[in-house]
């Protein structure tokens, strides 16, 4: 009899939390509450002086892998990354690099050692610092949640799509902030 009551209680709780007016998309797993993944767009940003407007997925990957050194205007390409642990970084590793964290480290260790990659990506401690870095460095490229982007940097379209477009595929998988 007690087990039946417990099941009713859990069912009622799940119903309450999943009701449409509620913004908290949660599921229960036993007694623990786990946040669901969101799909925010991840914007690719460059310095405002950079003439580039659009990049293909392939070009984007090449740039972030350190295989392209210069922009069309002659400035050196400077890749910026957030510190490990940021959902933005994890999304970049997953969708652009298609690597794990250790594979990423090995890639650049090997590239700089062999001389194939002249400069490793600049690792920055916060989205704000990353935005300022891109603002100050003419050849810098980085990524930010769309909500962290302001007028000091320029958003580049990927495969002709801007963040927010339905076809835009660069999304963040991680907890909502």
């Amino acid at each position, binding site marked *: 009899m007690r087990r039946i009551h417990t099941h009713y209680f859990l069912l009622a709780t799940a119903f309450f939390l999943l009701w449409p007016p509620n913004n908290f998309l949660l599921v229960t797993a036993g007694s623990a509450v786990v946040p669901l993944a969101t799909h925010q767009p991840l914007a690719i940003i460059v310095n405002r002086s950079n003439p580039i407007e659009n990049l293909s997925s392939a070009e984007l990957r090449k740039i972030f892998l350190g295989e392209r050194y210069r922009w069309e205007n002659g*400035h*050196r390409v400077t890749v910026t990354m957030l510190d490990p642990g940021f959902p933005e970084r994890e999304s970049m590793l997953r969708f652009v690099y298609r690597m794990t964290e250790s594979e990423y480290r090995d890639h650049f260790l090997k590239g700089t050692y062999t001389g194939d990659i002249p400069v490793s990506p*600049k690792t920055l401690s916060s989205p704000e610092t990353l935005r*300022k870095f891109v603002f100050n*460095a*003419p050849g810098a490229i980085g990524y930010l949640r769309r909500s962290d982007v302001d007028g000091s940097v320029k958003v580049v379209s990927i495969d002709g799509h801007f963040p927010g477009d339905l076809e835009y595929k660069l999304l963040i998988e991680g907890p909502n902030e």
Partner: protein
Amino acid sequence: MNTATKPVAGMKSVGYLKAEAFLSRAFDRHSTVLLFFVIFGVEIGLGIFVTRDLLNSYGQVQEIYAGSIQGLRRIGELQYDTQEARRSTLYALTTNDGNLQVQYADQSRAADQRVSEGVAQYLTQARLPREIELGKQLANDWEGYLKVRDGVLGLILEGSANEAISLDLSEGVPLFDRVRQDVESIKILFDERASQQLAIVTSASRRSVLQLIVGFMFTLFLGSLATWAFEKNKMHSKMQVAKLQMDFVASISHELRTPITIIICAGDNVRGGFTANRAESEQQGNIIVDQAVQLAGLVDQVLLFASTADKPHYTLRPVQVSDILASAIKNSAMALHKSDFAIEQSIEPGLPRIVGDLSAISLSLQNLIVNAVKYSAGNPRIRLIARIDDPLAERKEVRISVEDHGRGITSSDLPRIFEPFYRSPQVVAAHIRGTGLGLSNAKTLIEAIGGRLSVVSEVGVGSTFTVHLPAEPKDSPTPTPSFAQGPAGS
């Protein structure tokens, strides 16, 4: 026709007489108080003027000082921020940590923002063409340097340290030197302006001090001049009085000696039996009586003068003009009888009564009549005229004139004839006897009852002395019988 209504001065140049009269009037009474009041007033005025000037100078100095401090502080901040903008940029070179490099870039940009604001503020406050020119030059040079700075920062952040240093050395350093020179020029210009303003204020302060000194010297001069004039006037008056007193003593001695000698001679004649008959004895007796009467008159004048030395006080009452004239003629009868003079009286009909003292007015008129006889030069016509000045005037005045056709008075004597003991040199030379007190006494008596005495005279034609007396107001009570009143206390 010479006219004088009051005595003024001696026989000197007209300008001197006027000046002396002015100083005499100005410093005659309360002269010391007046003198110090004038000096005090001048000092106060001068003090207010100079104090105001000095306060203005002090305010200007305060403004310049505050402006200098503020201006120097702003220029100092400008210098510091330009260096901070460059220094922070170069600090970014010292690390490979992107986070630190961004921090340094932020610091540099914050400093350059302050510099840009400071330059804009300087330009809005610049007034002189040189200031505006320097401000614009600094703005241009700073803008040029910032472009290079941005390039250097970009290269540093991209990891191109060598290129960043190269760009800074080739373009950044010269441009920053120009910026530094611009700021230095602004500072020099500011110092020059502050020095100029300070020089202006210093000059104004010196002028104020000079004005103070000149003012004090002027006041000192004025004070000295006034003191000198005052002392000179006092000394002059004392000398005049001393001279008049000596003249009076000499004159009175003569006036006393002559009748006394005649009396003694006549007495000796009677006592020694030199008179042959009763008629001769009677003649000697008459001589004695006449001389004694003359002596008595002389003594009366001296006593009257002595009694009026302090202003006499009278009880004023309404008096009929006819009573006054009758009393004066009666008292002058002896002098008139001896000289075979006749007085013509002319009294305007309907004259109001005057307000005064019968005895004082009568005595004054008596003196005037005796004088008319004395200085008649053989012309026995004397007129006594009483009239009202303006029948329609609200405050009426009765004028009683004693008119003679004698020798007249010179213009140089006119201002002095009312001075006690004064006797004209021509009169003395003509051996006309007198004490110099008759007119003085007459004037004193008339003024004591609120009237005044004036004279119009022409040499060789005659003189007219007029007594001006206030008429009784219309709404006065019924006339009361008038009677003589002597000077108070006499």
